[in-house]
């Protein structure tokens, strides 16, 4: 009960502090239309839109903003966010359970005994090796996803026969049930007399999940990329390679970073697709589920806390990079809509080309 209240207070406090710091509470600024396919596309795609899409605040919108419904929706948002973060926070709190405490409240004192147990495994499985595997796998998946999705984005920019079919195949990869992918790859490896393991079969299974996200984000980014910039570069005598290196890549860089974030996190946390394919070496989520089934001790929460903190660190690092990029490009994501239409790309180009030289 008290934890729930605490969570809600934290959320309101976070939002309040943010509003206070940015001054958004007192001075509503024009609502700019954002266009984004996914969460990450929002953070990156929106930066292209911001400068061009801001319009005077429509009266209708301003009037709609302060009705009874407005406060109901605020309440829904706060409650949903509490629901979203509540379980995570409970796990984090319980991981500091005293040495005699159990898997549920009440806390029998506080200690870091369970964290110690993670690093000196006696009762639970050893999580250090699975963490290493998950980390390597996530990095490899991240690199492959970014690279392949970027190339596919370029291909779609040119257009090619059969592009529709490839698109639907990519979407299908999201829809095909995860265990079917896992099962098919597993049976395929058996058929070839090969042993399925996390770095072979597991890698392929993860890519069927991360690549569609990557490709869809890249398509959304490229759809917002003004062709006339490349043409201008070509007119100035840029070779295709220079065009790619100095024009296209700097512009889509935030999108690529978002794709990388999806690739890393979705792979690092993937369970269903890996469960049948890890062979001898479990990945982190598979190992965690294995422990849940057998010997659940509060150290499981400690592992949950550690892996969540790790994920959060990756996410905030990514946001930091995106923020830094947008700051360098005056008028980007966080900079406000101050850049006049038409100049936004010019600003970006000089901004990023300058560092290359």
């Amino acid at each position, binding site marked *: 009960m008290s934890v729930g209240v605490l969570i809600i207070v934290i959320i309101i406090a976070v939002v309040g502090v943010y*509003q206070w710091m940015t001054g958004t509470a007192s001075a509503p600024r024009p*609502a700019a239309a954002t266009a984004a396919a996914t969460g990450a596309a929002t953070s990156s795609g929106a930066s292209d839109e911001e400068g061009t899409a801001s319009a005077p605040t429509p009266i209708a919108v301003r009037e*709609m903003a302060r009705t009874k419904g407005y406060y109901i929706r605020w309440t829904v948002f706060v409650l949903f966010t509490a629901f979203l973060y509540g379980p995570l926070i409970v796990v984090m709190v319980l991981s500091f359970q005293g040495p005699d405490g159990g898997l549920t409240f009440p806390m029998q004192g506080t200690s870091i005994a369970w964290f110690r147990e993670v690093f000196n495994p006696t009762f639970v499985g050893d999580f250090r090796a699975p963490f290493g595997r998950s980390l390597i796998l996530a990095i490899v998946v991240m690199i492959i996803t970014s690279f392949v999705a970027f190339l596919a984005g370029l291909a779609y920019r040119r257009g090619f026969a059969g592009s529709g079919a490839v698109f639907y195949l990519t979407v299908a*990869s999201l829809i095909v*049930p995860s265990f079917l992918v896992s099962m*098919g790859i597993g049976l395929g490896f058996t058929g070839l007399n090969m042993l399925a393991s996390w770095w072979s079969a597991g890698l392929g299974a993860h890519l069927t999940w991360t690549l569609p996200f990557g*490709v869809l984000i890249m398509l959304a980014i490229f759809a917002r990329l003004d062709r006339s910039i490349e043409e201008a570069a070509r007119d100035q005598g840029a070779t295709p390679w220079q065009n790619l290196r100095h024009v296209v890549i700097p512009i889509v860089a935030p999108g690529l970073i978002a794709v990388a974030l999806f690739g890393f996190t979705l792979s690092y946390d993937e369970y269903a697709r890996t469960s049948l394919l890890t062979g001898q070496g479990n990945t982190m989520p598979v190992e965690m589920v294995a422990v849940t089934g057998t010997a659940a001790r509060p150290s*499981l929460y400690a592992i949950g806390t550690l892996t969540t903190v790790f994920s959060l660190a990756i996410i905030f690092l990514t946001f930091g990079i995106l923020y830094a990029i947008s700051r360098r490009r005056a008028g980007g*994501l966080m900079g406000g809509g101050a850049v006049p239409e038409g100049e936004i790309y010019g600003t970006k180009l000089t901004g990023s080309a300058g560092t290359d030289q």
Partner: protein
Amino acid sequence: MQKLITLFNRHSAYFQVTPLMLILGAFLIVPLLVIFTYSFYEFTGYFTRPAFELTAWIRAFTLDITYLNYWATIKITAITWAITLVIGFTLAYFFVFDILTLRFKIFLFLLTVVPFWTSGVVRMIAWLPFLGKEGIVNSAIMGLGLSDQPLEFLIFSEFAVIMSYVHMFTLFMVAPLFNVMARIDRSLLEAARDQGSNNWQILTNIIIPLSRPGIIIGTIFVTALVASDFTAIRFLGGGKLGSVSMTIANQYNSVQFPFSAANGLLLLVVLLLFVGGMMRVVDIRKQL
């Protein structure tokens, strides 16, 4: 050599899309073909051997359990869909129309996205101390004197499973709805207001119809994810719940490969038919 380079440049799009095709071919298409082959194999009771039999398919269509499972899955999917739609629509509306600055919009949106990038397993484990017999919710209810014994339905039940789905999948409804709503031309709302429409009329006559593509994309995501999940059902369903995907996973684990292959493909066909029907209504490519 020069010829080769010209050839490469002219067809570079094909080379650029090749890695994607190779990966999806090797790890999506081939595995599905393998499963298709296995669905005709013979299961002797101990092991599977190559054959051409329709046993697995006949069983898949004739056993009552198939229909019971589909009924259970459809029910859970429909409930989850309805809840995620209502919450997702409310949140997207909130982000787009209630929050006036872009920065704050993105900040609040990211606040709902961040958990998506953390471990699903951890979030699932987290329900135990939350909803369990001695969990927070039950302690609170008993502490307040609302009930003198723990509520059993909270955990290891359909309730817990649906709650976990809402927790994991609402984002897939919010994101596409946020995307389409942000593109609604504000002058439309203004015009409607000038003509004397109230908020409700604006909502039902402008915003909901224009949000349809977002609703459909969200529906596709939520349906596919719920219908193919077997982990939440296994963990939070308490073994009492049946579902299509869990039966398939159980058959696979007890090495009845042909049966799980046939059932799995059946589920895939049902899903693709559903998604295909949805896609007739909306062109996803235009939404990017």
